[in-house]
């Protein structure tokens, strides 16, 4: 009978064809997004459910004797359970690190809107970068366990950045569709080409520190400054830039900056350092044309 159970269980490996599944998904997406606007999920329904689920998971963890002491201390400090100062600077291996991660998940679950979620995810990616710095600083011998922890954190950074990009790409796509629709609607014999541009930015309008070489006013920079600027494009700086771009609703710039984060963090970890602001101050040698 045991053998029969396992034979039956193996049938789980039977699956739909990949082509069929993906084509069907596209069809479903078309159907769904062509139906009437669904009401956005609001705050009130979610809080109790999310809180119940996450508190229940955390309660199991905190029930361990050593954790009870830690929990009491946190309560006495009055830091609160979520987003507490006590858990804010923690890193993997610290007793309150789980609280920090649960707090992040809760924040994300209670946040609605792709832009807002993307902002949070960029913050979380920044947190992971700080944690990598802390782990590397505390474990100079860089043993196998440290490497694994750093690797996991790097993957977390990439995952958060990837999710942020996906969300922003949706915003970008919707904005482009809206622009096209508006363009068609406003095109008349007397009004050709007038387009109500909703939220699409031209890629050429991107301006951030690494693009000084493209400055149109004719000022060029020295090689030294370019090297310093390149060094400054570390993951933390890029994430800060991305957040600033997103605050000013510049989705295209944000996406462009986020594209560089994965490579930046890989380089930084490979070189054994993950730094925030560059220690060198750029001295610009400007040659006016």
């Amino acid at each position: 009978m045991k053998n029969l159970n396992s034979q039956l269980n193996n049938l789980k490996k039977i699956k739909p064809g990949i082509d069929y599944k993906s084509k069907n998904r596209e069809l479903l997406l078309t159907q769904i997004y062509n139906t009437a606007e669904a009401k956005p999920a609001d705050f009130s329904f979610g809080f109790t459910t999310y809180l119940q689920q996450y508190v229940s998971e955390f309660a199991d963890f905190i029930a361990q004797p050593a954790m009870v002491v830690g929990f009491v201390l946190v309560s006495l400090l009055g830091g609160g359970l979520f987003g507490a100062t006590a858990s804010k600077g923690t890193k993997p291996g610290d007793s309150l690190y789980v609280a920090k991660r649960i707090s992040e998940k809760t924040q994300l679950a209670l946040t609605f809107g792709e832009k807002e979620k993307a902002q949070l995810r960029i913050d979380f990616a920044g947190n992971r970068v700080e944690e990598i710095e802390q782990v590397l600083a505390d474990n100079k011998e860089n043993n196998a366990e440290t490497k694994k922890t750093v690797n996991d954190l790097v993957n977390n950074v990439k995952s958060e950045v990837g999710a942020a990009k996906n969300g922003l790409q949706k915003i970008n796509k919707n904005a482009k569709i809206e622009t096209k629709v508006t363009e068609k609607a406003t095109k008349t014999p007397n009004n050709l080409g007038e387009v109500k541009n909703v939220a699409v930015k031209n890629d050429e309008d991107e301006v951030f520190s690494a693009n000084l070489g493209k400055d149109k006013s004719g000022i060029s920079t020295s090689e030294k400054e370019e090297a310093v600027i390149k060094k400054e494009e570390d993951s933390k700086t890029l994430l800060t830039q991305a957040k600033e771009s997103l605050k000013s609703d510049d989705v295209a710039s944000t996406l462009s900056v986020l594209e560089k984060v994965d490579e930046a963090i890989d380089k930084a970890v490979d070189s054994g350092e993950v730094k925030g602001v560059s220690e060198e101050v750029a001295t610009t040698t400007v040659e006016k044309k």
Partner: protein
Amino acid sequence: MNSGIKEKILFRKLEKKDKDAFVKAYDYYFDDIYRFVYFKVGKKETAEDLTSSVFLKTWDFILNNSISDYKTLRALFYKIARNTIIDYYRKKSTQMEESIDTYNFDIKDEGQDLETKIDLKMDYTQVIEKIGELKDEYREILILRFVNELSVSEIADILEKETGNVRVTIHRALNALKDLMK
């Protein structure tokens, strides 16, 4: 994230008719629903058509109804799948007990070489042939319990039966299959 929590969160969002949540539910449940439909109807192409129909009908249902009465999202999908299959046979006006298309299925790609895949298909084929010879009630319950790994209480909810009844049926179905495999 724990799958139970994930399902609950999706369910809450779908109560508010969240489109993105439905797409995530599609990704999460599609394989299980396809397998269920495949073993019920026995033909790959029919299973594909009906599975697509299940998801579209579920979305339509969510848009136009309250789903609060359903205990879980999984139960909702399976109930709609069962009703879809019943409607299919009603229209087709044939017996439900069709033979299963034993060689026409795909196996999850776990990097096996071709020979291993063929061996696996042969192993599965024997069990699938015998499952196909069972009556529909037994076939359905074995797929829900052992292939898609639903709990007894979930199965009871989907089939609208008592849990005791479900346990007895599972036992009888296994015995019937065991007899066929001798």
